[in-house]
């Protein structure tokens, strides 16, 4: 019980922190805190396998995936906590309180018998016990999760992986082209400017600034630039977005 | 296969033919019209042949009963008694008349579809009047809305948006009524399923003698639908809007045939299935009917548009019909049924002549006419006969029915008769004032060139007028057929509500 009473406040605090932190990375770390604490509770609740899985898979893999994406789209940006939808926050908190109290009251009213405990079930080892259930009762569901994973992989490929449609330019061809372009159009021959990652933010999506303070569009990866309708001139005013939410 | 099934199928097949045939031959419009007219005449002939076989006073005839959805107790069951027979005949009679009269009404639009829709409407209407299964009745009842909707929305004389609006209004009103009735139809299923075997056959349902609170609710469901259809105050407002927007031919089918389904339904379903509830509701229904009579007449007086006017006269007349049905005596019942027929004839005549006028003038506003009698005396004469029939002039068949209803209402309660009787004065005012404003006075420049009725136009109206006069002096063929049917219904109501028969008071 000690573990519970120690961890529970930590978890609740961390969870609440999730609502208030201004940086997405901090949110991820707070979530990690909750998850790790949860892992410990699993241990207390006689679920050693889940303890491991929670740490390895949930915290170690899933949350890392979050972090990857976070880094990709601007981990350092400060998130605005100003509510833009009228009444949303009040209603959300109110709704949360009502739902929370309903849940707590309803659950609190239930008098559970003293726990059976898992000594019997875990007698042959927790992992074996789980395997037993998993491969007997839930074998079909287990198989079905395969479909989920394939779907996920397929989805990631479809949405995140641009297929190469034209044969890749060889180094030689590229060099020839760039020189030709320089000759014909005067296009800059050297490498593209680096993004503003180290200058202002941690995201590669941040454009570098020229000495005069103007944005250097070419410094951002092409795939990260939003499409611009042909009739719209030049770059969006990224600098002015500083205080807006979202990674810069 | 019953002759009724044939009667339902002929127009429906004719409708299909009307649309399809013109694609293979010469002038598509003319052929479509000919096919449509031919079909309707065949239908009429078949209906008359059936009437000749009809055996007065021996209940449902030409019956046919097949399982449709057996698990739900739903049958394809048709048959007619006197009540159904006259309505089927009226339907069969009016359609060729309307087709002949609206020969050129759809020339600038999809002609074939216009006449096909009319035929479809006819087939479905005949089905409605001959259905002896509540579910079948309901299905056809609602199905009639579709051709009607397209007829109103697609071919009206009003401007497109107005027509469309009217069509939507019509359909929504009808659906509102119909869906409320659906709840009651469902109630019947639940009731009979509980009682054992689910059934929708009228005969079996009426034998159940549904009473009590359930009966009242179901009655309300059915009555509401019929009141919207009929229409009755205060759910009548779709009527003038619709008649003002639709072609007069469509209006005839709507007001003279389709709306009769409402009053027919009251007699056939409300009274037969829920006799106790019908008696329970009588005071309210009578009051509504009286309001409709007077209110409709006053509204008609105040109209500027003759099609609206004619539509509103029907409100008044449906008040009479409902009054006749709900005073529960033979005169009232027979009068009401007779009224349905006569109103069909008279109003059809009015609408058709109005249609002729509108075709010539391009307007339905009363003030746009004047002095027509001078240039087109025959047309004026026909309008006058229709108008006088609407006003219930003795010697025309409408008088008999109106008088029977009045007598019945008076017998029910003197005040009911006294209020209803004011309708005859108001009727004289609205029809004659319309006639005065449109047909008399000096000839207006706009009406100067009016041609009198052509042979085709005349041939469409004359049968109506002849029928009005003949039945005005000799209604026996109708009353003989109607009387036994109404009597059966009334006896049923009496039996089912007689406390003695319900359990023996002593």
């Amino acid at each position, binding site marked *: 019980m000690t573990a519970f009473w120690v961890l529970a406040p930590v978890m609740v605090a961390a969870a609440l922190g999730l609502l208030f932190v201004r940086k997405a990375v901090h949110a991820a770390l707070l979530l990690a805190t909750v998850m790790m604490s949860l892992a410990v509770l699993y241990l207390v609740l006689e679920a050693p396998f889940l303890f491991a899985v929670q740490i390895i898979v949930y915290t170690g893999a899933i949350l890392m995936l979050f972090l990857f994406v976070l880094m990709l789209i601007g981990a350092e940006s400060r998130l605005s906590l100003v509510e833009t939808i009228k009444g949303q926050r009040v209603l959300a908190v109110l709704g949360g309180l009502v739902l929370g109290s309903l849940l707590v009251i*309803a659950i609190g009213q239930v008098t559970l018998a003293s726990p059976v405990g898992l000594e019997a079930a875990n007698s042959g080892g927790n992992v074996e016990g789980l395997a037993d259930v998993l491969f007997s009762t839930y074998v*079909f569901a287990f198989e079905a999760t395969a479909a989920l994973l394939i779907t996920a992989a397929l989805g990631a490929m479809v949405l995140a992986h641009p297929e190469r449609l034209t044969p890749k330019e060889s180094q030689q061809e590229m060099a020839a082209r760039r020189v030709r372009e320089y000759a014909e159009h005067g296009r800059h021959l050297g490498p593209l400017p680096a993004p503003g990652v180290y200058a202002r933010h941690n995201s590669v999506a941040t454009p570098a600034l020229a000495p005069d303070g103007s944005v250097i569009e070419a410094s951002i990866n092409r795939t990260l630039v939003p499409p611009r309708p042909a009739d719209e001139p030049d770059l969006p005013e990224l600098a002015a977005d500083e205080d807006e939410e979202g990674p810069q | 296969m019953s002759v009724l099934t044939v009667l339902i199928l002929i127009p429906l097949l004719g409708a299909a033919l009307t649309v399809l045939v013109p694609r293979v031959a010469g002038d598509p419009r003319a052929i479509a019209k000919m096919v449509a007219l031919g079909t309707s005449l065949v239908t009429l002939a078949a209906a008359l042949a059936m009437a000749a076989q009809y055996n007065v006073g021996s209940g449902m005839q030409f019956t046919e009963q097949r399982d449709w959805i057996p698990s739900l107790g739903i049958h394809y069951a048709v048959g007619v008694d006197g009540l159904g027979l006259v309505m089927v005949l009226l339907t069969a009679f009016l359609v060729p008349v309307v087709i002949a009269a609206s020969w050129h009404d759809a020339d600038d639009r999809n002609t074939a579809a216009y006449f096909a829709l009319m035929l479809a409407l006819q087939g479905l209407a005949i089905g409605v009047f001959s259905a002896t299964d509540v579910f079948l009745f309901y299905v056809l009842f*609602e199905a009639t809305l579709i051709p009607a909707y397209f007829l109103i929305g697609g071919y009206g004389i009003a401007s497109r948006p107005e027509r469309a609006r009217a069509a939507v209004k019509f359909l929504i009103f009808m659906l509102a009524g119909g869906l409320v009735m659906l709840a009651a139809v469902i109630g019947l299923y639940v009731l009979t399923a509980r009682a054992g075997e689910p059934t929708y056959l009228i005969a079996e349902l009426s034998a159940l003698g549904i009473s009590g609170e359930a009966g009242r609710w179901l009655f309300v469901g059915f009555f509401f639908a019929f009141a919207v259809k009929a229409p009755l105050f205060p759910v009548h407002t779709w009527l003038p809007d619709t008649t003002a927007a639709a072609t007069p031919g469509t209006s005839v089918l709507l007001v003279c045939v389709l709306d009769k389904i409402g009053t027919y339904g009251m007699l056939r379903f409300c009274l037969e299935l829920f006799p106790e509830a019908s008696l329970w509701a009588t005071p309210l229904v009578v009051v509504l009917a009286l309001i409709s009579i007077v209110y409709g007449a006053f509204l008609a007086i105040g109209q500027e548009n003759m099609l609206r006017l004619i539509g509103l006269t029907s409100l008044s007349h449906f008040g009479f019909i409902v009054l006749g049905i709900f005073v529960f005596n033979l005169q009232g019942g027979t009068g009401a049924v007779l009224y349905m027929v006569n109103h069909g004839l008279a109003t059809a005549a009015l609408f058709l002549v109005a249609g002729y006028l509108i075709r010539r003038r391009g307007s339905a506003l009363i003030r746009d006419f004047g002095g027509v009698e001078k240039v087109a005396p025959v047309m004026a004469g026909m309008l006058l006969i229709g108008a006088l029939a609407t006003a219930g002039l003795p010697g025309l068949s409408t008088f008999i029915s109106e008088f029977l209803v009045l007598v019945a209402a008076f017998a029910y309660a003197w005040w009911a008769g006294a209020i209803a009787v004011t309708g005859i004065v108001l009727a004289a005012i609205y029809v004659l004032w319309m006639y005065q404003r449109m047909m008399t006075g000096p000839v207006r420049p706009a009406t100067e060139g009016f041609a009198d009725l052509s042979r085709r136009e005349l041939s469409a109206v004359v049968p109506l007028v002849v029928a009005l006069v003949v039945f005005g002096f000799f209604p026996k063929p109708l009353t003989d057929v109607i009387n036994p049917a109404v009597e059966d219904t009334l006896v049923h109501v009496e039996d089912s509500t007689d406390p003695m028969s319900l359990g023996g008071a002593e």
Partner: protein
Amino acid sequence: MNEFTIPEIAYLELLPLLIVFGGAIVGVGVEAFVGRSARRTVEIALTSATLVAALVACIWVGGRLPVVEHGGTATARGLLTAGDTLAIDGPTVFLWGLVLLISLAGVLLFAERKVSAGLPAFAGQAAATPGSRAEREADALGLEHTEVYPLMLFAVAGMMMFPAANDLLVMFVALEVLSLPLYLLTGLARRRRMLSQEAAMKYFLLGAFASGFFLYGAALTYGYAGSMKFAQINEAVRNSEGNGLLLLGIGLLCVGLLFKVGAVPFHQWTPDVYQGAPTAVTAWMAAGTKVAAIGALLRLLHVAFGSAAWSWQPMLWVIALATMAAGAVLAIAQTDVKRMLAYSSIAHAGFMLAGVLGFQSAADLAPGQLSATQAVLFYLVAYGFAVLAAFALVGLVRDASGEVTELARWAGIGKESPLLAGAFAFLLLAMAGIPLTSGFIGKWAVFSVAGAAGAWPIVVAGVLFSVVAAFFYVRVIMLMFFTEPTGTAAVVRPSWATTAAISAGVAVTVVLGVLPGPVLELAAHAGEFLR
């Protein structure tokens, strides 16, 4: 202690499901190994073949389901398998067949390329930023994400598994198997990709949110019953007092399912997703998801919580009422055909819920009386085909930039294309519940079971909201037929595939309207859920 018992799995009865899973996996393989040029053809053929094979298997399975006497009077047919976590019973097979048929039509719609000048409805390069050069390149090459076909099959598998699930955990897995491909498919539109992606994101976030509730409900129910198997939950419900855990469990589980059904107030994703998704996906999804979700809801409420019907029925009254009302009322103000149909699907969800809450125990039903299951199954058939065909028709009204879904521009298309407008009008009338269409019989059926269960206020409200709903259907018909054409939208002639799908939808709507007997009998033959 831990004696592992090899679970008995009725592979034969699971055959339809296995075929679909197998087909999906083979489809993924095709992506990897078949050249780009042939891929599309192979995928379409494979998917269709899979679905047909599954359908055949389904029919075969349906024919050999054993009859199980239970509960005294009511009969059910079927068996429980895979550790009792799947129920292959009459309703399951019925729903399987329905899902497969709908999906077969869906494939036909997916395969349509003719309407947009040879381009498919799906993005050529979903990873390319909308409006970018990469996108244009992909378009120029006529690329297509053939992954949609395996994705679709996965979703179909989920849809089939969902109503068959006889265990909360399996139901949850099925929910996800069904949902994930849909999230993806939603975001794959070729045109208006921003909208499509937005729809995908909304669908995904809300779906995940809702499945969280489902899961918590499952947890609490597990806490109450000690098991997640429906039979044992039912046992627990019957044998012990209901308590907070059970009630919260029922509530939260319902939330998850009602979200998928699109019931108010969990409906708000529906219009956005229906509008944003490629129309072919919308057509198939609107039909298929509803079938699966309602099937699952039926099983959950009738099997697991049937003994506590008194406790959840009032809640469902409220939801059904709100759903009918909001769906019907909100549709009126819509100016986009797809959104309007989406709201109409919400209203229909309300009507279906009226059928669901018409649950009566076998003892309360007269012999031969329509049961809630039957009614809802029928409604699903009627609605599924109608909505599929309707959305398919929406995809045919186009201009140079793609589909035209603004209602105002549909004005007068009845004049130019009476066939399309006529078919659409007919389907709308079916949705409005006009007799001689399947929609009418469906409405009749669900209202009659609701009425039989004493929910007369719901019936009356349903009837009234049907009128409101009819208003906007009728208005569209009016717009198509009685308004001057604007000339800004044209009806394109589709390939045989789409034509076939639409014809099938219309034909089912007609046939079920005129002769609903066989399908009702089939639903009756399917019997009740196996407990």
